């Protein structure tokens, strides 16, 4: 059984085919990287998986359940957590409040007017745990909108983690980061994968990060998978080198 499966996924915007007949399958516990040149359709693929908009054709399955017609928030309830290429956070709330909202909604308290002691304690524990895991404990009381870019990206990952997702989708988590920050985020993703056994799909432009972390890599080119394999296979693939790695490296 695969954690995530796409079958013939296609998305067109007018005459532009952004995602073209994509089929792929991600195993439980796998870290899958998706790479490809700008405009290849990587983010659009994420948007289809997470229910941002409906596909033009094709199916999406999570653990063999067809979720193609579910709304975005229903997919989150099924265990999908995502981050965005351009950071999406609650800027005028503190880091802790950002994460707390995620934890409360994930625990099913989104409509609650009151939390009993034990529920409140459970949420608090989840929040502090997530803060510690993402290295944000010391900044928990700061407004997330006033943090440095790298910390904002980390806070967004923390919000996704507070959902306890079974499938974590990260869209260029190191985008716009310096050397040091990229290293820290890569370390975090490695821990999530190796230690916490998260199933992760990662869109990433930084090839060192991709080839160090990924179990398998899918290369998208003009909306369609050009290749799919282990990092070694991808590195050796002449078609990939011609289309992408050649001018990226």
């Amino acid at each position: 059984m695969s954690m995530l499966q796409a079958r013939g996924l296609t998305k067109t915007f007018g005459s532009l085919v952004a995602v073209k007949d994509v089929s792929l399958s991600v195993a439980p516990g796998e870290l899958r990287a998706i790479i490809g040149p700008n405009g290849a359709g990587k983010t659009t693929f994420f948007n289809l998986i997470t229910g941002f908009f409906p596909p033009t054709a094709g199916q999406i399955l999570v653990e063999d359940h067809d979720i193609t017609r579910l709304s975005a928030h229903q997919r989150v309830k099924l265990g999908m957590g995502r981050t965005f290429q351009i950071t999406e956070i609650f800027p005028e709330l503190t880091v802790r409040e950002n994460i707390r909202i995620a934890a409360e909604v994930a625990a099913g308290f989104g409509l609650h007017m009151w939390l009993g002691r034990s529920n409140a304690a459970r949420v608090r524990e989840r929040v502090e745990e997530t803060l510690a895991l993402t290295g944000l404990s010391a900044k928990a009381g700061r407004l997330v909108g006033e943090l440095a870019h790298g910390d904002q990206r980390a806070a967004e990952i923390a919000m996704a983690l507070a959902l306890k997702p079974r499938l974590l989708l990260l869209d260029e988590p190191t985008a716009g980061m310096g050397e040091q920050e990229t290293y820290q985020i890569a370390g975090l993703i490695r821990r999530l994968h190796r230690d916490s056994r998260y199933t992760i799909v990662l869109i990433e432009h930084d090839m060192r990060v991709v080839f160090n972390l990924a179990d398998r890599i899918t290369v998208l080119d003009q909306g369609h998978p050009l290749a799919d394999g282990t990092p070694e296979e991808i590195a050796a693939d002449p078609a990939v080198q011609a289309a992408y790695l050649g001018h990226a490296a």
Partner: protein
Amino acid sequence: MSVAIAGVASRRRGERDWLTTAVIALALLTVPLWLPWVGGYTALASHVLVMGLVAMALNFLLGFTGVMSFGHAAYFGLGAYGTGLTLRYVSDSTMLALLAGILLGGIAGTVLGALIARRRGVYFAMVTIAFGQIFYYIAYSWNDFTGGYDGLRGFSRQPLQIGPLVIDIQNNGTLFYYFVLTVFAVSVALMAFILASPFGRTLLAIRENQRRARFLGIPVDRHIWLSFSISCFFAGTAGALYALLNNFADPTALHYSLSGEIVIMVVMGGMRAFWGPLVGAAVFVVLQDYVSSMTVNWMSFIGLMFVAVVLFFPRGLLGILRRRREA
């Protein structure tokens, strides 16, 4: 900048909120003692509370959910008519009339909210205006029942009876003020309670970033609908008090120009501050009272002040005070 200030002081934020609340509570509780000294009268203070409540109700939606309604007078006006019609045709119980007003405004908001919660931005605001005007024309045209253009008369609030105790809010303005203050306090406490809950935090999340909220699993449309509904119950409460205050309800209480005034109160007072709209309403109502006795152009006076606040103090009047104290 202002964000940074709030952040540095985030630990003191809680204490400061309590202090503001204590000062406001003290001022409101002692109104009959100090108001005559500054040339005010109790009915004016009651009016401030009524408009303060509807402004805070709108701000529940605008400031704490990030959704703009330009038609909130509709639910305020329905509250007023619900109360007036009940006293006039059904019962002489003030409490029952109050309840009828709250329910009429709240239920109308809940039903219409279900139809508009999926719209966004300008479309949402436009539809809220359109629905508001429908009620205006009903009240305006239905002469026999609502009194039409002249408004609904022929009712008056009745003394409260609690067991053997009779509280004469009918003739004693001070007692009526404390009655309004009690309803106001309960409403505001409920709003604060909801905003401090997990549900309340989902509303803040929606205000801050709808996309992020949606992809954390919050059904955004449904939560906006609930927020709209809650906001309308409180707007209806304010409208019910308004009818009791004036022993009168008229179509202008439903009109979109009143909706606009409520928005002005909220923005002028400060929509990020819990008490901001009350301060805005106080300034608005008092200015209206004083300036309108001197010139018919009081609205341009308010307009100028509004523009000045928006340009120079985008966080509203209460926002200025807060920044002062932090500096």
